[in-house]
């Protein structure tokens, strides 16, 4: 076997910033970023070739002295591993690190409903560490919680998630996992997902996949399931089944809402695809490298062309090329009248997408199909390449080649303070956002937003129509936001609101030496108060 990109012998995952060259700050034309990313060279390297090394590979990244509320890899692991139906995730951490679990429980409730599975709560436990544990170590508490996990939920596997505090005090979760596995009799899987480790949360997906790849997915499947396709997904509605039915395929969704056995059988599938290459690349690549399950090397299934090509690539693996062509043709015909109607409705309208990288590319494709202009986009990160590095997986290039350049293509991780500038320089009627914290601020600036919570909505041919219908409802809210704009005081200074460069602080670091005069107003008040 050739040297693999992903090393499943290690318990830790190499961060995206090192593995893929991921950046979280960039601002310019999309076509320039494509050039700077040099996907093809990186691809050659990925596949064992040599196309230069070192600094030359590092994309120029804009830093910011001001950052804001954001997400971490630990939370991503919670929303992946924490949403399995019959495995326990232990947060080895103080209680606050489990704060978002209830939200992921709601995700799971909705996901289970969408997938027709019975309602249940997530199976998470916190080791609930206190100050003393920081001093004396917390491994005994971890052992106790592993035993509790077994006794409470009798799970098929137990995962241990590392947190900032436990990483800093040097908790050895690998050893505890190994030690406890025989006692509890199920896989105990350490996950190195402490929040400070990677600058971008998407490393957390890789950590989650890494864990299941190492210890859950069946290394030696006795059979292949020729009608089973892995889809690396989140909680989205099961629209894929209806798209893949004409090809005679069933879907194995990974990871959210999956059971131990569903994950285990991933190595029995005929191939792996995904709705988002940012999400799915690691899993698909490792399945290909170490389990012999090929990944689909195709554009993502958004917009007409993307969906056509994605279906064709899958059909090829499944040997259903004719069926695919028939289906593609009939779908084109089916959606045409409604699509024409929607294009008419959206004539002259513009939209901005703000999501993770590859998914944004998919969404912008859909806007293009609907005839909606998009001069700008905000992406929370940019991966110059994905783990697969396949010929047809350069999602940004695919987007720009198919639908044209984007003049204001910004990469910036959840920095709401830049929204005034971002929304000033590009026309837009609405935003499509998938991440907490930004949509609300955009709303205060006067723009209605569509939060794409069910991430499968834009997928496929019907997805174009679904998004169109939803956007009608979003545009109807414009006045709500205009009124809000009049009444909501943003926390930003007039000076900042008057700027037009979102990266002004980065580009002009000297302004920080010139702070506003301190406490003028405050001191006056003090004087009045004591008078």
């Amino acid at each position: 076997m050739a040297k693999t990109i992903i090393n499943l012998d290690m318990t830790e995952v190499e961060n995206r910033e090192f593995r893929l060259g991921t950046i979280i700050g960039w601002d310019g034309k999309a076509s320039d970023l494509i050039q700077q990313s040099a996907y093809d060279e990186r691809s050659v390297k990925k596949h064992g070739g040599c196309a230069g090394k070192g600094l030359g590979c590092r994309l120029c990244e804009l830093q910011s002295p001001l950052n804001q509320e954001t997400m971490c890899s630990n939370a991503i692991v919670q929303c992946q591993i924490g949403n399995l139906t019959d495995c326990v995730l232990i947060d080895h951490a103080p209680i606050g690190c489990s704060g978002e679990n209830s939200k992921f429980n709601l995700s799971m409730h909705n996901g289970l409903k969408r997938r027709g599975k019975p309602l249940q709560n997530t199976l998470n436990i916190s080791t609930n560490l206190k100050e003393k544990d920081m001093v004396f170590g917390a491994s005994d508490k971890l052992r106790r919680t592993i035993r509790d996990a077994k006794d409470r939920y009798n799970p098929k596997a137990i995962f241990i998630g590392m947190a900032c505090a436990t990483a800093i005090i040097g908790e050895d979760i690998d050893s505890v996992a190994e030690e406890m596995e025989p006692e509890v009799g199920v896989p105990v899987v350490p996950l190195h997902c402490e929040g400070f480790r990677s600058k971008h949360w998407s490393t957390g997906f890789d950590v989650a996949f890494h864990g299941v790849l190492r210890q859950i997915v069946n290394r030696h499947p006795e059979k292949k399931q020729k009608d089973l396709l892995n889809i690396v997904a989140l909680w989205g509605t099961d629209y894929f089944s209806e798209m893949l039915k004409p090809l005679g395929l069933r879907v194995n969704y990974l990871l959210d809402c999956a059971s131990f056995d569903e994950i285990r059988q991933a190595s029995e599938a005929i191939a792996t695809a995904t709705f988002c290459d940012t999400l799915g690349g690691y899993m698909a690549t490792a399945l290909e490298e170490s389990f012999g399950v090929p990944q689909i090397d195709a554009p993502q299934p958004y917009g007409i062309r993307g969906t056509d090509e994605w279906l064709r690539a899958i059909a090829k693996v499944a040997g259903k090329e004719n069926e695919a062509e028939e289906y593609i043709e009939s779908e084109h015909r089916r959606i045409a009248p409604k699509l024409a109607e929607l294009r008419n409705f959206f004539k002259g309208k513009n939209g901005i997408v703000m999501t993770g990288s590859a998914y944004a590319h998919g969404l912008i494709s859909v806007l293009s199909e609907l005839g909606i202009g998009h001069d700008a986009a905000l992406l929370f990160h940019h991966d110059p390449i994905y783990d697969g590095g396949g010929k047809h997986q350069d999602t940004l290039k695919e987007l720009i080649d198919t639908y044209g350049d984007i003049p204001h293509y910004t990469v910036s991780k959840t920095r709401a303070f830049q929204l005034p500038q971002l929304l000033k320089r590009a026309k837009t009627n609405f935003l499509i956002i998938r991440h907490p914290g930004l949509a609300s601020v955009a709303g205060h600036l006067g723009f209605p937003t569509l939060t794409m919570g069910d991430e499968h909505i834009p997928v496929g041919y019907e997805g174009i129509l679904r998004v169109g219908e939803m956007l009608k409802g979003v545009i109807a809210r414009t006045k709500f936001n205009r009124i809000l704009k009049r009444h909501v005081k943003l926390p930003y200074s007039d000076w900042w609101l008057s700027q037009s460069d979102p990266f002004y602080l980065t580009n002009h670091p000297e302004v920080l030496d010139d702070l506003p005069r301190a406490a003028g107003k405050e001191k006056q008040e003090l004087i009045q108060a004591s008078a």
Partner: protein
Amino acid sequence: MTTKSNSISDPRYSCAVGATNSVVAIRGAVPIANCSPGCQLKQTAFLTFENGFQGSVYAGAGNMPSANSTENDIVFGGIKTLDELVKSTLKIFKGDLYVVLTGCVGGLIGDDVPSLVRKYHEKGYPIVAVDTAGFKGNNLYGHEEVVDAIIDQFVGDYHGKKQKGLVNLWFETPYFNQNWRGDYQEIARILRGAGFNVNIPFGPENNGVKDWRRIPKAQFNLVLSPWVGVRNAEHLQEKYGQPFLHISEIPIGGEATSEFIRNVVKFAGIDKLQSEKFIREENRIYYYYLEHFSEFFAEYWYGMPSEFAIAADSAYTLAYTKFLADQIGLIPRKAIITDDPPQKFRAELERLFHDLTEGVDVQVEFEEDGYLIEKAIDGVKFSSGKPLILASSWELTIANKKKALFFEITPPSSESLIINRSFAGYKGALNLLEKIYSASVGGK
């Protein structure tokens, strides 16, 4: 192992660094989160999203400045990152008060945050530092830390006169107690109606730092909460020589609210004329509605709950149990306090639950572990009809199993949207009845 251990399933509070949200509850104040990426999204998700989808304002949620510590900060220290953050926050944010809250990382790697913050403070910036490492305590602990820090580092000393009738209201924990905004408004309305000048540190009727500067002038502090805030009132007593009145039970309904008013008026020694007139007017309206409601209550044909189980923080568990058991006549079958009150408050809480109403008594339990809470509720053999379960979203599944009427009163709460809802005082009692019995009626 169904016995108590360190483990916590299905948590019902977040950690100290979640007290950024108490800063957001002060008009014009800006929290600066000195912690890892993820910390604030987790706390905010718990407190403002999974808690009736309350949302946030101003420099809260997505707008909140955050250090988002990296491996680099861990290895080389995070002070430089924090300094940049403070500077850019002062540059870009409009704030009347900035509060730097330091989480686990800063504490563990030994950054000297107070010194850094003092530097800006000395330059005249209204900035305050608080240690809110997550391993030090939960968000209620963090809330109390923030209050003391603002008092000590921002409000400062005061030697002037006290103003008779001016009362500082220390009440529900912002964003954590899900009805806090509406409850603050209702209790403030009631205290004003009774003749007080009410100074409100948090929420819709807070006027920002101006009100914090007024704190030392108040005649007294009213702590309306079983335990949160008592520590702050003790501190204020010491610092400003301000007496405080501690009332554990949030008043709900005509009787409790009238008694509450009389207690506060008596403590303050203000004139009774206005408060008694106010009580009369409020009772007139309250019982007008209750007379109407009593028809439904006496005559509804299709069943309603007669027993309930409750699991929430100290304040709501006590207040709702008292109202439902004493004023409505629902039988409490299980009451669980989930916010880990300090030991010294527990005996008094137990006593209050033993004294709910004539002949009704429930042994309150203290439990934070969701697994054990679920087991405890599961163990109740409800005797007839549909019971009522008041708890968190985690109990949705056990409520289904028990075929119970269910709604959430404590975080996490995902089945209701809360804006200005209140279950406190005169008006809130009626809202609470609407909520409970709306769940009971119909052919849905």
